[in-house]
């Protein structure tokens, strides 16, 4: 197990290094024009551009440029030239909001996703299954931001049933925190509920036709017991993988659309503001931050699997 763990952690470090190099390529090498001018943003002054070229060593070979950029990012010295604030500092400030949003939404989508999947598999072919299938299909076909705009307009702006966007810290008022986040949670969760429900439904239907399920039934176990103890357990394995990666993506700034629609000043909102200002340093920071979460979580999922199933360690 220790050797496996070390190998995985080493792999993770390598992937993160390559990922950071891609971030460098995306922002410095691939687009046309002068990178220093691009990074300086819309309000670029000649002095700023010269300072950036010097700070990021943009006249040096590419590996020096990449190293400098990472050094600046990790020491918190990379700043946005639009507002002169440290990128890492701003990301750090957005974390509580993004974490609150992601955690709540994840609880909702996992619970309802599994519920919906099980109900529709158990009643396969019947009315409830058809209804769920249609609803799930609509759920995965809706743009998240549009759903957010509609829900916010219908339930917050027209009827004031819910607060009109914004975030209240958990520490200042847990009730208001919950109240303010309820709509964003639902908005973010809808897509995943539909998706998980569909995946789980077909997984359960596949599993149910396997020999060991028939054996369990032949031994006289009740249908419900076989479903929950045998079939559901195996069907949930792919869901665990999906959940690990989706949760990481949402945590890593993938909730940018929901944060934008509800004015939640999280990491995604920070990136959204940066797009509007064509301000690249925040985007560099957020992209790398997002990739970090995904790589970290996929390593974690692998390790948890290896811990659960010793056969994987050998591979």
């Amino acid at each position, binding site marked *: 197990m220790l050797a496996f763990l070390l190998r995985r952690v080493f792999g993770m470090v390598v992937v993160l290094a390559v990922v950071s190099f891609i971030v460098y390529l995306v922002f410095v090498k691939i687009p*046309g024009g002068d990178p220093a001018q691009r990074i300086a943003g819309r309000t670029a002054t000649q002095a700023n551009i010269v300072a950036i070229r010097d700070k990021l060593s943009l006249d040096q070979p590419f590996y020096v440029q990449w190293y400098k950029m990472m050094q600046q990012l990790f020491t918190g010295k990379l700043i946005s030239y639009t507002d002169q604030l440290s990128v890492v500092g701003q990301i750090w400030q957005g974390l509580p909001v993004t974490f609150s949003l992601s955690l709540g939404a994840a609880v909702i989508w996992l619970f309802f996703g599994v519920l919906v999947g099980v109900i529709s598999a158990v009643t396969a072919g019947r009315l409830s299954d058809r209804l769920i299938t249609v609803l799930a299909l609509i759920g995965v076909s809706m*743009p998240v931001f549009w759903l957010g705009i509609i829900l916010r307009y219908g339930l917050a702006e027209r009827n004031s049933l819910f607060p009109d966007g914004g975030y209240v810290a958990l520490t200042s008022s847990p009730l208001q925190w919950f109240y303010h986040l309820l709509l964003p949670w639902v908005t973010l969760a809808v897509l995943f509920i539909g998706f998980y429900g569909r995946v789980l439904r077909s997984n359960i239907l596949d599993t149910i036709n396997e020999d060991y399920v028939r054996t369990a039934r032949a031994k006289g176990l009740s249908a419900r017991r076989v479903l929950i103890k045998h079939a559901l357990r195996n069907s949930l394995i792919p869901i665990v993988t999906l959940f690990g990666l989706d949760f990481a993506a949402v945590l890593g700034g993938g909730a940018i*659309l929901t944060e934008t629609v509800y004015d939640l000043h999280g990491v995604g909102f920070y990136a959204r503001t940066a797009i509007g200002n064509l301000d690249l340093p925040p985007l560099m920071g957020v992209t790398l931050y997002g990739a970090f979460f995904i790589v970290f979580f996929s390593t974690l999922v692998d390790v948890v699997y290896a811990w659960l199933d010793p056969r994987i360690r050998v591979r």
Partner: protein
Amino acid sequence: MATSETGQDFTLDTAAELASEERGRGIEGKSPWFLAWRRLRRNWIGLGFLLIFVLIVAGCLLAPVYASHVSHQGVNDTNVGGTVTVNGKKIDVVSSGGVTVGANGQLTVKPGGVPIGPQWWHAGGRYVLGADSLGRDIATRILYGGENSLQVGIVSAAICAFVAIVLALLAGYYGGVLDWVITRFFDLIWAFPVILLGIALGTALAINGFHHFGINLSGSSLWIPTFVISYVYIPYLARPLRGQILSLRQTEFVEASVAQGASPLRIMFSELLPNIASSILVLFTLIVANTILTEAALSFLGAGVQPPNPSWGTLISAGQTTIVTAPWLSVAPGIAIVLTVLSLNAFGDALRDALDPRAKVRIEH
């Protein structure tokens, strides 16, 4: 249908059902494509959704005709001071506002700058879905925007499919080091959240465009979101295909082809490719649904289709600022997206059921 006593109340084996249906003479000597078409033909819900998609595409392609013959207003024509005749009454397209005194001396304050709402057919085809705050016709703009959204979605899915198929064939056929390199390449794309990678590329390229390898694209070119979206979806298509090719590689007919001295190119394109064609078709339909959604999201955030080009995403984003006074500006283009993506998803499901009822191909987000 079995009863609950047998414990089979929760099984639904479409494959077995279909097989029992097709036992006997009916399918003798028929090609798998013919059988798939026969299954699809019976699935009228799936075909209905295909029809909806075709109608949406046709409608968007006819946008110029709509603009010149129905709404009588170009995509960017403003009409702030103008009026429109609704049921014989002249109405301001964008309300001028002001205070009017009612019969019993009550003052009614009318807010200014509020555009006219959906008129359906009461204004003779004008402002069917209302106007925006500059008096532009929303229905016309949705059709033109749809042209861009669909073009970006479909073309990027096509580019993505082409690259993914080539990479999957190479990785699956040669295996070894090449396979390792290609799968690591997928892993690297997968290491970024789709939307963030799209935003990073979209924004960085929107500033000065792309000028490498003899390709020159300006920042507002539609090709930039197209390439960005096709790039981020490569692994979603290539991974399942590579898996299928890896298992096909072990089959006897491929071995026989190798023994006959067929060249790698021939094996890849005339032995392997036809065998993954049905999966490609299904995955392609589902990928188009996803690329359209991603285009909308990127454009909504300002990192996709750039002004002056309209797209469904930018229309929703523009409407968001006036959601309280003119909700239809955001609602209408959103419904267009939902209908398009829903029809593609539903048709993709039907296609999968028809082509390979046992198939495990699906797109993982």
